[in-house]
């Protein structure tokens, strides 16, 4: 079928004049924007004393036992928000991803609708979700948990669905030849095949949940972020530095833990 006279394609096939024009336009836009929003050298120089002053007022971090206890409770709450939100989110993601996955979905063509819904959940930033839930449910940890849940479904829903679409086709066909329904094929052939990828995505989701649960408090959705906001609002910079250290610790502990888990699973 191959035409023997077919010539080899040129070396720069992808680089048309249009692409060149677009590239130049992009460069021009970056340069123009720099003039408007990037700091001038003068501003940078002027900012240095302010930064030094701020860091000076932050040191040493507040280590009063009463304060540390309060922070400890908040850290625990942050972890709870992240864990519960991510766990529920991951569980919800499984059926949602199943419905969203092409060729696998029990909804047939309807999978597009579910996929669009998941994209919507993902594209709205988590702080915006937090604002929405604070406005509807009220201040506190529950709004935070809801936010993490929605965020996790947006993230895991997509990656789970992609994994399901990429799962090996032959075993699925074999089970279908045996007379298994869509649900049996999911549990019998697809899930075992994609289990490592599911676990990996879930661990990432958990990491992401911890990171976002830290800042949710800034808009009143519970967790350590709430303390941070109070500290800045009241100019308690020594408290703020302690909280930042604590956040750093939380995120680091989380990443070390998920790395260990990942290595263990491989």
């Amino acid at each position, binding site marked *: 079928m191959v035409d023997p006279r077919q010539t080899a394609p040129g070396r720069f096939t992808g680089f048309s004049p249009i692409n060149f024009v677009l590239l130049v336009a992009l460069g021009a836009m970056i340069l123009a924007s720099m003039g408007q929003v990037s700091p001038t050298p003068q501003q940078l120089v002027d900012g240095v004393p302010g930064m030094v002053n701020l860091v000076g007022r932050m040191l040493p971090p507040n280590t009063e036992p009463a304060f540390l206890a309060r922070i400890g409770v908040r850290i625990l709450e942050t972890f709870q928000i992240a864990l519960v939100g991510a766990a529920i989110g991951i569980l919800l993601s499984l059926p949602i991803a199943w419905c969203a996955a092409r060729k696998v979905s029990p909804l047939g063509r309807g999978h597009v609708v579910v996929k669009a819904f998941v994209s919507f959940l993902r594209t709205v930033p988590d702080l915006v979700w937090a604002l929405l839930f604070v406005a509807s449910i009220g201040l506190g940890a529950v709004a935070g948990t809801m936010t993490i849940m929605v965020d996790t479904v947006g993230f895991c829903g997509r990656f789970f669905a992609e994994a399901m679409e990429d799962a090996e086709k032959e075993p699925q066909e074999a*089970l279908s030849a045996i007379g298994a329904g869509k649900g049996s094929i999911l549990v019998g*052939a697809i899930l*075992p095949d994609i289990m490592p990828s599911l676990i990996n995505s879930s661990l990432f989701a958990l990491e992401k949940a911890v990171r976002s649960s830290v800042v949710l408090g800034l808009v009143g959705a519970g967790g350590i972020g709430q303390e941070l906001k109070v500290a800045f609002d009241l100019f308690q910079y020594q408290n703020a530095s302690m909280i930042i250290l604590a956040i750093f610790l939380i995120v680091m502990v989380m990443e070390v833990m998920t790395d260990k888990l990942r290595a263990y699973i491989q």
Partner: protein
Amino acid sequence: MLDLVTDTATDTAHTAPPQVPLIEARGLCKSYDRRKMILDGIDLEITKGERIALIGSNGSGKSTLLKSLIGLHSISGGSLRCFGDPVSAQSSRAQRLNMRRQTGFVFQKHCLVRRRSVLSNVIHGLFGEPGSWRAFSHSLASRDWRERAMQALADVDLADKAMDRADMLSGGQQQRVAIARALVRRPRLLIADEPAASLDPVSGQNVMNLFTQLCQTHAITLIYTSHDMAHAVDHADRVVALKHGKILFDRPASRVTRAHLQDTFDG
């Protein structure tokens, strides 16, 4: 032809009801891309208890035909009945289930679920039976099912590998697991796409002997493809040859000659 039918009808009226063919294809066509016909007007009738060998060169459409028979591929033209029910895109789920429940299918590629144990894979063969949510894994399956699966594994000489992960087996061993998975449901119709292709000569012979023996004791109908002409001729009642999407010949195995085979694989 007509008088022949009436003749036999009066002859067998008091012994057995007239045989409905298990599979009946009329002018069956299949094209994947609506341009090239892979199957082009296949007429095929298979009655209960027959053993059919399907031969043909690579790409002649053997696997396509086998998959079409139980509706894994939708057909592009003609008519097809399997177990008396029409097979088409419009078949109801109940019809499809009825057909597939009575059929064991061994694929050309092994098609095992890789991260599951060999035993679980064999138990998957019981999907479609009542209570089949228990067929997901050997740890959920009932004792009866596990024993049936072990028997099927023993039939293909793999009982000692039951708890190994399926992807830890060699290609030929995986093929035998796939055969056990097809046999565990005690099918009435067994479709096997090159069951012996990746097996060593002795295992290949054993599998073919096992098929023959099952067909004789349980009146299973067998359709298989093979590139091994000895397998095709020795273990079948009928040999059907495909060439360029059409049936080149369809005749009793005892009357297939070297010239016939030459014809099948030439150009």
